[in-house]
């Protein structure tokens, strides 16, 4: 359950409307893999991740980043029921993918930094605050079905 005011929800949606999901998704996932290289443990089949440049240009990273961010975008439409929205994905990440939920928090933080990079001054402290609440909520929802 994410507690955003009506104003925060509008601001989040307004910014998201300007996001190029393919570009931002690929960049966020790429930056995650470079800034926190231990996260590469889940992507051994992705090919060349040996340098920062290789990671950022890797087509599998871009493709997967787009997929992840599209899913995140779906979540933005259901801020009042993130746990329900991400229930199936939560089970998948626990039972099949075996991903430590800490990785969701790391990716959420990287996404916020990428948004700041794209939007500059427009990404005000208030907007950052709203998005940090959203990414925290999504991370919690994705961890919810873990057992």
């Amino acid at each position, binding site marked *: 359950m994410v507690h955003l005011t009506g104003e925060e929800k509008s601001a989040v949606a307004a910014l998201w409307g300007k996001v190029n999901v393919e570009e931002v998704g690929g960049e966020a996932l*790429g*930056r995650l893999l*470079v*800034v926190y290289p231990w996260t590469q443990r889940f992507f051994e089949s992705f090919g060349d991740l040996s340098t*920062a440049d290789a*990671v*950022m240009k890797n087509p599998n990273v871009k493709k997967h980043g787009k997929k992840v961010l599209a899913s995140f975008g779906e979540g933005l439409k259901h801020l009042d029921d993130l746990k329900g929205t991400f229930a199936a994905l939560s089970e998948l990440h626990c039972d099949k993918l075996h991903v430590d939920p800490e990785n969701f928090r790391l990716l959420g*933080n990287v996404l*916020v*930094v*990428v948004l*700041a*990079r*794209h*939007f*500059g*001054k427009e*990404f005000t*402290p*208030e907007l*950052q*605050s709203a998005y*940090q609440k959203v990414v925290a909520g999504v991370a919690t929802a994705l961890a919810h079905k873990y057992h």
Partner: protein
Amino acid sequence: MLSAQERAQVAQVWDLIAGHEAPFGAELLLRLFTVYPSTKTYFKHLGDRPDEVQLLSHGQRVLQAVGVAVRHMDNLRAALSPLADLHAHVLRVDPTNFPLLIQCFQVVLASHLQGEFTVEMQVVWDKFLTGLAVVLTEKYR
């Protein structure tokens, strides 16, 4: 801990901040207090809603300390020893708060540098600031 190339990259980014410690620091603290309100508990002396003058003053102090760290990357423990003592015995900021400050630092860097904020800068500064936090909390017990 940081290679020669990484140190050069840290210094390269610092060159973009140097001279602007006050406004950078003010924005850093404003983001910290806005996004993570519980951090304000360490700044009661600034009041519930610190004004621009206070943020600029304290922000400058924080960023100047980062500047000291940049100039002494090969000797962080010695250079930051007084600050480490301060944090251990007086301020006693819970260590979990440093990653929050680091996240806000990255956001300030990213929002100001935008196209120039490469992934190499992000990883190197994350590594550097995380190391800084370790030194500042090392004397806690």
